[in-house]
């Protein structure tokens, strides 16, 4: 049987992979992909805790995950619109070039 420890460890590893991509790459779209990976790791955590624990509120896990999926999709849409807008004025998606506010 799957154990809760295995699920949570796997979710922690996924979060670390997403964090690695977000902190390492300088391409804006790859950073957005990394954020989606991190959000999916959190969703997996929710579902794992919902499945493995006795609880009176039976639908809290999937409900939270559905709202999280919706919010992640909206955030991806806004983030990609920002990438397109930045590309239009800077002609680059390199995050190191987006520094016009730098003092």
């Amino acid at each position, binding site marked *: *049987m*799957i*154990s*809760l*420890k*295995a699920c*949570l*460890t796997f979710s*922690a*590893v996924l*979060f*670390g*992979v*997403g*964090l*690695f991509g977000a*902190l*390492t*790459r*300088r*391409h804006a*779209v*790859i950073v957005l*992909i*990394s954020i*989606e*990976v991190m959000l*999916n790791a959190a*969703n*997996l955590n929710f579902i794992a805790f*919902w*499945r*493995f*624990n*006795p609880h009176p509120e*039976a*639908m809290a*896990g*999937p*409900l939270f*995950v559905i709202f999280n*999926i*919706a*919010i*992640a*999709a*909206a955030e*991806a*849409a*806004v983030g*990609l*619109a920002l*990438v*397109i*807008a930045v590309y*239009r*004025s800077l002609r*680059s*998606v390199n*995050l190191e070039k987006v520094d016009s506010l730098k003092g």
Partner: protein
Amino acid sequence: MTVAFYILAGLCVAGALCAMVVRNLVYAVFSMIFFFFSLAGIYVLLLAEFVAAAQVLVYVGGVGILVLFAIMLTRDVTGEGKRHMASKGAWLGGLVAVAVPLALFIPAVWRTPLPESPANAAVRATPVEIGMALMGGGVPALWLVSVLLTAALIGAVVIATQDPPGPGEGEGPAR
């Protein structure tokens, strides 16, 4: 079932790692889509089938296609990739990204006494139950998410379709 879990978990981590590391951007997006599919398989193993279906519909069908469109619109796909891909402080970022799960999450998980078998395998998240929960106590959350989605999508359209002002068209329709 444990074997299936480990296979799917390995596929998930492999897909996510390839999406972070690969030089070609379209391959990275395809790897991310593969990761979403594998994670939906794990949701099915954890007996959350509706969430697995929602994951495939929204993430693969929505977010994946959206990222592909954004790549096609910012068409510098492999131009910058001729040099290195990593940002300036990438070694520090990689260190933090490896240290945070290893030092924080995984010890916290391994030291807590956790239940071994699913306690309530009889509770199934069928669409009927989710619908009752949403329309019952979850109505304010449903309103807020719908307002947020509307605002986010309208805002995304506004941000993405603004034209930068040209040199001779500052006045616009007054001409």
